[in-house]
């Protein structure tokens, strides 16, 4: 009996080992499939144009034509577009962090008549599809004289957004109430409590909200398509699409170089902010 038990355990362990090896191979193959479009994009961006139209294709171009990146950047006003995009991302992220933070504080800690009803109303607006708002919003921005400027892409973020308000309120409610009461007894005003106590403690959620907004604004296509009319105000997304519609179907090497440059900042954000991003997604995904 005593000899049997370890061998049973051994067999169980080796079966688990085989299972893990099998899983590793399956996941590895799937990973290659998921990475393939990226690799293909970078590979194409480094080939001379004749080589992009060769079958079977070469995967590692020799020598790599890094010059295509310089060409792509000068074929479109790349840095102009990049600057516009950065402006929209940064002003929008700052706006939504500050405004949604304020509002979330109002919903989480202050008592006022109608609060719970209004919170319920706020959450239910997340169901409204954007096309319903699209036309009148265009009218609003038009009467403000904002069409053709970057304002419609970042200014609304300064007036709160339902998702972020919801997310931040959830987080705020997790902060021990005693902390706030102690500050009130010490004579802190609500503003001081918000600014000195709640915001510093809420850093993780601020980072999540900021990161998500930056990625959203960097990737947004419909917004710029609707509101930007002059080429010098284009963001990278719109500029890249414009370039594609002008030269698509021929200069794939330059298109891929430009696309790589547009993807790269997101990739870098991902590498540094992966943990915050994943935490944010799990927060919004199922901790309702």
């Amino acid at each position, binding site marked *: 009996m005593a000899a049997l038990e370890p061998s049973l355990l051994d067999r169980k362990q080796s079966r688990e080992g085989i*299972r*893990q090896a099998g*899983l*590793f191979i399956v*996941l590895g193959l799937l990973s290659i499939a*998921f990475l393939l*479009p*990226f690799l*293909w*994009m970078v590979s*194409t961006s480094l080939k001379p144009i004749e080589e*992009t*139209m*060769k079958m079977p*294709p070469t995967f590692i171009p020799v020598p790599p034509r890094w010059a295509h990146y310089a060409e792509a950047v000068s074929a479109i006003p790349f840095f102009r577009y990049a600057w516009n995009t950065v402006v929209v991302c940064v002003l929008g992220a700052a706006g939504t962090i500050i*405004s949604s933070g*304020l509002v979330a504080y*109002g919903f989480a800690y*202050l*008592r*006022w008549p109608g609060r719970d009803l209004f919170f319920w109303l706020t959450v239910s*607006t997340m*169901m*409204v*599809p*954007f*096309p*319903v*708002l699209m*036309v*009148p*919003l*265009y*009218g*609003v921005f*038009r009467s403000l004289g904002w069409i053709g400027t970057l304002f419609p892409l970042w200014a*609304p973020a*300064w*007036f*709160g957004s339902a998702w972020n*308000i919801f997310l931040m309120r959830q987080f705020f409610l997790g902060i021990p109430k005693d902390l706030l009461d102690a500050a009130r007894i010490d004579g802190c005003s*609500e503003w001081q409590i*918000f600014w000195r106590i709640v915001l510093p403690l809420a850093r993780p959620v601020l980072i999540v909200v900021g990161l998500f907004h930056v990625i959203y604004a960097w*990737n947004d*296509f*419909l917004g710029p398509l609707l509101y930007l009319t002059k080429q010098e105000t284009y963001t*990278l997304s719109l500029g890249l699409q414009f370039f*594609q519609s002008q030269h*698509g179907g021929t200069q794939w090497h330059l298109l*891929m170089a430009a696309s790589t440059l*547009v*993807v790269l900042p*997101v990739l870098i954000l991902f590498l540094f902010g*992966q943990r915050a*991003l*994943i935490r944010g*997604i*799990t927060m919004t*995904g199922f901790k*309702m």
Partner: protein
Amino acid sequence: MTKRVGVLERDERKWAAVFMAPWLLGFAVFLAFPLAASLFYSLCDYSVLARPVWIGLGNYVDLADDDVFWISLKNTAVFAVFALPLGLLMSLSLAGLLHASTVGRSFFRAVFFLPSLVPVVANAIVWMWMFNGEYGLINFGLKGLGVQGPNWLSEPAWAMPALVFMGFWGVGHSVVIFLASFQEVPVEMYEAAELDGASKLQQFWRVTVPLISPVLFFQFITGIIGVLQVFATPYIMTRGGPARATLFYSMYLFDNAFRYMRMGYACAMAWILFLIILVLTWAAARISARFVHYQGQ
């Protein structure tokens, strides 16, 4: 004493006005007004350049007779019926594989997650190149299997399947959510199933998936809302072609509003979309009440 509380309360309300001010304004200007206005415009003949003229249900009556409207609705429905369930199945399976593996889990999770962050324009352009009939990687791969691939994006029969297929690269978001939800399932549940002789696969479908069904339901609802609004990818890749095979609802809506300047008509389309979403959500909630398992109930 009562007076003092009264002062504090009044103070709190004053602060509430300060803290809520941005959202009161934002809610009114960027949500409530547009919502009411678009319902009103949907009952009017309206281009942004002239005053709206009341025509009652005229837009809705015209829509019923508009073949292109029905085509766009059908295309969107077909896309939704394939892309949403297949996408959820795929992300559930990927999350299941990740959950079962102990080697390199966070690396693989990162790899699956990454494509869902890629800017939609760059993603669309890369996939146009992947689907290229002559030099694309997809057809090169098919050739290796002895199949001559079609000219994906310019053949009416193949453009829609191509769009559904490339959607699988965007499942990373729900993979992350499902994986996190799997980790919440109590270990005792598996131990009990193990004692009953359930295989790992049975445990996944019979224990894990039912226990996370609220998460699955939530993903399904947000999936419906998202999939019915598909716009940017087909707009960039196919412009709705070939032969309107990929003309989606939102694209036709956009064209009506900003190309033909029929904004009242576009608003009517938007309200129909809203109604469809509400009805589907309600129906999903009704049906799922029998399947979704909330813990502690």
